[in-house]
């Protein structure tokens, strides 16, 4: 059965199931939770691992290398932390030490930015490690286990890094199958170092100085071993599929087998692309389309990717890079693909265009893929293309020009002729089907919205639907307005990881959010949508006024969640809101969800369950019956002393309990 895990927790499970023996770490957003989870397991006694609180990432990387000479070692990092590790990273790859890194990909400043892109992974691409890109929590968990198997293969013996996009990957909660430890033990036997550092009978020296002759010969060997990782990754991915039912390869080809137009990319942003490919695939008057989701970035499977493109007869490849190659001709992925097809296919190579997008947490949305397939179509037809990367969402430098005035004049002088011939084709922009229900929670930081949304996700998965919860993260303080988004779609079928950002249900944990000038909380709510507000004072009439014209069909519900919490003596309103959410979103009925809540709600369990039931019962579409005295939860000393650590202990789900129960 699937357990609800965030990407970070899933990676931690990967390390746990791999029986990692040493885990030095220095936490950095967005991969902190992975290290926290491991540290918590170690302190609970659930995991026998030596954890070291390093004084910097540089030390953590040095420690993992020292440990990796004798035992299985791992760590997690991101962004600048990874950049700080790169200095010692080559000692791991050059020293042939197969340790593991989990990387929550994040931008590298300046300007400082905590959100996702691949800049950090691109910065480490020349440090000789195996780089695997994963697209969701499940792939991250499987990726860490497979990473050790690949890295420790005697033909390879090179460190590996598993990459997952920050926040939309590392902080997204979804159902993850946790393999049985005994199955993983059979798949991944214990690590035996070929040259243990402390074998008394065979003393060795690591990191000796070598002069030019042995140095270059050593580097030749290192390159040969890294190259072997391509073949080994395929073998390991296949065997993983035979044992666990989820096969992995070097890349995923999603869409038409004979796709003329291909969009290539790394990692999590493929979610939005899959929706577009399914929509455009097999449409009248459109050439075949496919998404090339590359899993193994280093060593780059140049020959295999070129063969796949040649076999499909692809005419144009648009490569999306979520990072830059400053001063380079193309960004890293585009550069690798362009050289690969040139070397392997020569004059039969498809044309390659480069697009830069998704930087610093920019979302790569469905319409961006429509744009990129349109661009691929144009260049397949022989229209001229820019000999430098295109950019997504830069108004002064668009891919297609609708209004010449908006374009930067310098750029127009340079690329005007190309722009004039690049035409937007409406057939690529037909409305996408809405296959999912989307719930957005607006709350104030500290009200427990994420906790309740994660619980809702777990209950939904239990009832057979697929759910994904992505909280928004930023520099908010306690009390700031935040959003938590949940995506629901029917069980089976496709895995959808992309929000179309029209909300079926909008939940407001605090009615004052309606009046925040910075937040147009009701924008994006569907005309047939539902609005649920925690309020003891607002009338339906007043709320209708707030909604404005064109939203006459919106169903409005209110629930006095603060009153319920006060009555029960609870500190948070989130459980009452959770009950009310089940009332307004009938596709996941409360009676089916209750067995999950009975096992998993935060303590005190009985009160939390009662709050869920009361929230469900007192949720009404009549508005507040009468204006009542404003309810404020008392600000006690206990409330003020509350710290996130306390919250994490009652956080949901409790993975340790999950495994004990199982």
């Amino acid at each position, binding site marked *: 059965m699937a357990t609800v895990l965030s990407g970070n927790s899933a990676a931690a499970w990967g390390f746990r199931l791999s029986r990692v023996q040493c885990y030095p770490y220095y936490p950095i957003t967005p991969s902190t939770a992975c290290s926290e989870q491991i540290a918590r397991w170690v302190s609970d006694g659930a995991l026998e691992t030596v954890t070291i609180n390093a004084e910097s990432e540089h030390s953590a990387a040095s420690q993992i290398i020292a440990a990796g000479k004798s035992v299985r070692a791992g760590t997690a990092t991101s962004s600048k932390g990874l950049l700080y590790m790169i200095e010692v990273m080559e000692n791991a790859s050059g020293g042939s030490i197969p340790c593991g890194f989990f990387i929550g990909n994040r931008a590298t400043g300046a300007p400082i930015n905590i959100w996702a892109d691949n800049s950090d992974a691109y910065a480490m691409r020349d440090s000789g490690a195996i780089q695997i890109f994963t697209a969701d929590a499940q792939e991250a968990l499987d990726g860490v286990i497979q990473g050790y198997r690949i890295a420790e293969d005697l033909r390879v013996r090179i460190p590996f890094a598993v990459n997952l996009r920050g926040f939309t990957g590392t902080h997204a909660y979804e159902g993850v199958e946790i393999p049985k430890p005994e199955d993983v033990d059979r798949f991944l036997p214990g690590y035996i170092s070929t040259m243990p550092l402390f074998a008394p009978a065979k003393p060795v020296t*690591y990191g000796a100085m070598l002069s030019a002759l042995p140095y270059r*010969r050593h580097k*030749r060997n290192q390159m*040969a071993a890294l190259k072997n990782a391509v073949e080994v990754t395929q073998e390991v991915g296949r065997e993983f599929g035979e044992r666990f039912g989820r096969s992995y390869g070097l890349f995923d080809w999603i869409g038409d087998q004979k796709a003329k137009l291909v969009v290539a990319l790394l990692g999590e942003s493929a979610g939005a692309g899959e929706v577009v490919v399914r929509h455009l695939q097999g449409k009248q008057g459109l050439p075949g389309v496919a998404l090339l989701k590359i899993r193994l970035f280093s060593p780059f499977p140049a020959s295999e990717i070129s063969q796949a493109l040649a076999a499909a007869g692809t005419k144009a490849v648009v490569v999306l890079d979520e990072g830059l190659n400053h001063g380079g001709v193309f960004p890293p992925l585009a550069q690798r693909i362009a050289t690969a097809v040139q070397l392997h296919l020569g004059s039969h190579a498809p044309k390659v265009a480069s697009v830069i997008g998704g930087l610093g947490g920019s979302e790569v949305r469905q319409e961006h893929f429509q744009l990129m397939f349109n661009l691929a179509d144009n260049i397949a037809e022989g229209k001229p293309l820019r000999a430098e990367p295109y950019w997504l969402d830069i108004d002064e430098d668009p891919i297609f020009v609708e209004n010449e005035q908006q374009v930067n004049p310098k750029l127009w002088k340079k690329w005007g002729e190309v722009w004039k011939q690049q035409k937007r084709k409406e057939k690529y922009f037909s409305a996408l089907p809405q296959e999912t229900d989307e719930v957005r929670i607006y709350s104030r930081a500290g009200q427990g919205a994420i906790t309740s949304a994660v619980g809702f996700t777990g209950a939904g998965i239990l009832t057979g639907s697929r759910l994904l919860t992505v909280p928004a993260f930023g520099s908010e303080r306690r009390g700031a307005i935040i959003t938590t988004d949940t995506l629901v779609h029917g069980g089976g079928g496709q895995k959808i990881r992309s929000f179309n950002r029209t909300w079926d249900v909008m939940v407001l944990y605090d009615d004052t959010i309606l009046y925040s000038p910075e937040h147009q909380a009701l924008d994006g709510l569907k005309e047939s949508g539902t609005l649920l507000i925690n309020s003891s004072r607002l009338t339906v009439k007043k709320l209708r006024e707030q909604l404005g014209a064109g939203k006459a069909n919106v169903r409005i519900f209110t629930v006095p969640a603060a009153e319920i919490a006060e009555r029960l003596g609870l500190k948070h309103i989130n459980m009452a809101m959770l009950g009310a959410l089940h009332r307004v979103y009938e596709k996941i009925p409360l009676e089916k969800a209750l067995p999950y809540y009975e096992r998993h709600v935060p303590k005190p369990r009985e009160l939390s369950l009662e709050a869920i039931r009361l929230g469900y019962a007192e949720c009404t579409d009549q508005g507040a019956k009468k204006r009542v005295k404003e309810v404020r939860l008392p600000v006690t000393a206990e409330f003020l002393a509350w710290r996130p650590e306390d919250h994490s202990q009652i956080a949901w789900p409790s993975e340790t309990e999950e495994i004990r129960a199982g």
Partner: protein
Amino acid sequence: MATIEERVLDSKNRHMEFVATGRLVTARPREATGETEDRGSKIEDRAELCAPEILAIDEVAGQVIDGIDSKAILSRMADIGPEARLFLHRPQGKVLRAEVYEDPRICPEINRGAVIENLKEKPKDVSGWRTHDFIIDTKGCLGDECGRCSVMCPENAIHLMGKGKGSFHEIDPLACKGCYICWVECYRTAADCILVDGKTFDAAMRAKHFGE
């Protein structure tokens, strides 16, 4: 006078234990227990401290290895060719892992990870680095009563010869680079002990090294 209770503090130190008497803490040698000795004797038997062997096909064919199917392994190695290797981990002679693989190295004389096996390293003749010859006079050397020069020698070129009375130190002429460290460190200030180019004491040279 009331006696103050003694309390042994919790410590991981294997040699000393710490006793608190009121606010005074004293250290005393820990009473020898069998446990530490056992640990000492077992250390070489621990599986993770036993280096695996990596054998080529002729090395596998040339010996009897208990616990593996040699025939099947040899035929798998023959299929791979001359690059085939057997990874054999057998602490205390018991095979825990036997894995056939193809050696990825292009240049086979360099170890993976450029790791150097210390015992395989042959001493190099560095006598050409020297501009003066260093010899220990057996008459002046205190032998095993001293040994400071052999501890200080950065090249491990000084060895104790003999035992007890009549023992002396000797400088390996192939390993000595002529760095003067033994000469500077000698407890007898090399007065009649270390000869540099046959001289026992040279005021000018000492002044140069000690700033006298």
